[in-house]
């Protein structure tokens, strides 16, 4: 997967990114993530974090039109698809 430097959601040369987690993000992790996103975007990033218990665990990171879904819910969903054999038949 590749994340292109995003030009959408740009305001005043700043990229807006979002992260969703199942539990509140610690400051240390938030900073770590922001540093990575700045590296990717190549410009300042405004990171907005929110909590959604329904993702069960992990995190969903969005920047521009790119999404990295590292949530447990997503992994379970993929597992479900493989279990139902839908991917093989379609």
């Amino acid at each position, binding site marked *: 997967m590749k994340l292109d430097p995003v030009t959408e959601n740009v305001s005043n040369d700043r990229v807006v990114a979002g992260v969703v987690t*199942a539990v509140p993000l610690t400051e240390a992790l938030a900073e770590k993530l922001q540093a990575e996103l700045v590296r990717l975007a190549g410009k300042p990033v405004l990171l907005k974090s929110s909590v959604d218990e329904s993702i069960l665990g992990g995190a969903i990171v969005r920047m521009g039109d790119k999404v990295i879904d*590292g949530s447990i819910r997503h992994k*379970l969903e993929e*597992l*479900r698809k493989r279990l*139902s054999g839908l991917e093989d038949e379609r």
Partner: protein
Amino acid sequence: LKLMPEVNQLIYSTVAFFVLLFVLAKYAFPPIVGMMEKRENTIRESLEKADETRREAEKLLEDYKKQLAEARNEAQQIIERAKKQTAETRKEIVSKAEQEAKRIIAQAEEEIESNKQKSFVELHDAVADLAIMAASKVISKSLNKEDHLRLVEECIAEVKHIQ
């Protein structure tokens, strides 16, 4: 007794006989002969005609017999043809019916197989849904804060690998 006639009388009689003969030959015989010939001709013609009629009748009879035989033959042929055609039609109908039956059976089998497959997929999906639901509940209950943070860190590591 005088048995023998007189010579004169004999001569007269003979002369008279020949004269009579001559007159008869001259005037009476030709019409008689003509009449007889005519009658003979008539009879012969009648016979010939009768013979001809008989031959014609025989020929007609022969013709009728021939025609009858032909008619019988033709009738037989028509019957044979009809029999043959009936047999063919019957065979065709049976063949068509068999094909139709085979088609229906094949279609039914296909439908059964399709339904089976569908049911299997649906069951599979239901089982998968159930399993995932159970897994979700177990996971949401069993993860502690450290586990959550570790998972988030793994996700950040994923971002880190993006070039």
